[in-house]
């Protein structure tokens, strides 16, 4: 984004560039309880040259060159799910990205959920549970909790709002972002107030498109 670009070019902000698979394996190592995992990418690139945290390694089994990426255990993970029970047993439909590894790796996990369901519902289909309750520290029911982006099978991104946001921060990476945060994040007193700013027509349109994943 232009915001990221602005801050990197201006300097003084901390950030790290890893490949997606490297990040995935870092969270996975964290979730598996091991201090690293071996991967075969990033080697030979300047992405690796910038990352002294990763270590090149000659495989003692095959002699191949590999990269060891260190485990990453976030202090807190915030994950939005379609449904979970009050203990935190969570079902996730469709795209799950790195959410499961994140939940296993993080020291604390806060779930937001479209809907809290009973533990009885969870126990009727235990092979649909993707995150077990003992990873989870808090559960918060927040319908439209992934707004203005999407929640698989429930709503698609709220495009008019997303596009207005992008136009705003691309035009003014610092002032535009500050203004957006003031108006849409710090301003609203409740989640419903935030959703009101997105607008009911926008929400309904997104929900309609979200359900279309099942419409064929």
């Amino acid at each position, binding site marked *: 984004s232009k915001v990221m670009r602005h801050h990197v070019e201006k300097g003084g902000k901390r950030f790290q560039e890893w490949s997606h698979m490297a990040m995935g394996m870092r969270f996975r190592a964290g979730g598996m309880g091991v201090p690293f995992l071996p991967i075969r990418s990033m080697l030979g690139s300047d992405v690796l040259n*910038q990352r002294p945290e990763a270590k090149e390694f000659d495989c003692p089994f095959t002699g191949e060159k590999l990269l060891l990426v260190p485990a990453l255990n976030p202090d807190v993970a915030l994950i939005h799910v379609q449904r979970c029970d009050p203990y935190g047993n969570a079902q996730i439909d*469709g795209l799950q990205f790195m959410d499961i590894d994140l939940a296993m790796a993080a020291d604390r996990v806060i779930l937001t959920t479209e809907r809290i369901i009973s533990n009885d519902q969870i126990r009727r289909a235990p092979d649909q549970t993707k995150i077990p309750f003992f990873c989870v520290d808090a559960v918060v029911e927040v319908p439209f909790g992934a707004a203005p982006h999407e929640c698989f099978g429930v709503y698609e991104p709220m495009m008019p709002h997303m596009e207005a946001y992008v136009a705003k921060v691309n035009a003014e990476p610092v002032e535009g972002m500050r203004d957006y945060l003031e108006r849409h994040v710090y301003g609203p007193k409740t989640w419903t107030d935030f959703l009101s700013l997105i607008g009911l027509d926008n929400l309904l349109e997104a929900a309609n498109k979200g359900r279309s994943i099942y419409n064929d």
Partner: protein
Amino acid sequence: MTESQRHTSAEMLAILSARQLKDGQVVFAGVGVPLLAATLAQRLHCPGLTILFEGGVIGAFVEPGKLPPSTNDQRCTKRANMVLGSADVLLLLQRGYVDVGFMGGAQIDQYGNLNSSYIGSPAAPKTRLPGTGGGNDIASLTNMIVAMKHEKRRFVEKVDFITSPGFIRGGKTRAESGLPAGGMFRVITELAVFGFDDETRRMKVLALNPGVDRRQVQDNTGFELLFDEGLSMTEPPTGRELATLREIDLHRLFTA
């Protein structure tokens, strides 16, 4: 040239890229021209092409006129064969299940290394580009097709930063860096189709686009190009290719 065969350079890229794909292949595609080209190939000569998206999708079928805004959206999953974690779909590359990786490029050098991170030095960059995402993984682990704009500032002798490795410094340096598999296979631009010399791994013109000559390609390139002995002239887009492409990108999101 009939009316229907006029085309934009993005359309040219998509069509020439689609021609590089073979039926039955498993293709990892990024958003934009790659997604478009893979979908086009699927509707023309590759009905059994399997498209993978970084968001975690296997066997995507994009509906004409409903291109997803990114490859991370639920729209990419509709009628797919499988949805899985985004690290897991990248691991398929590492296990060797993917035939072709297919993406766009901002800056490329004579050995097919791609830069999508920084113009200038990483410590004090002139321009910050979007960064690797899964690009480094895809380029590290499979055979790559890259579709990009042909400009002298984009085709440079040495990229400022290797985000996604091609053949590194040529010769065997890719394998020696720990990347025994894959490598840059084809680069497609609005001027030509490029491969890489088997020994030196330097970029080589394989075919010129219709109406383009050698000099025009060399003049727009920041390093000395090789030209294949059997240098050929690419066939122009057919009416069927253009019509199908326009049906897929109905709203001209990527081909305007």
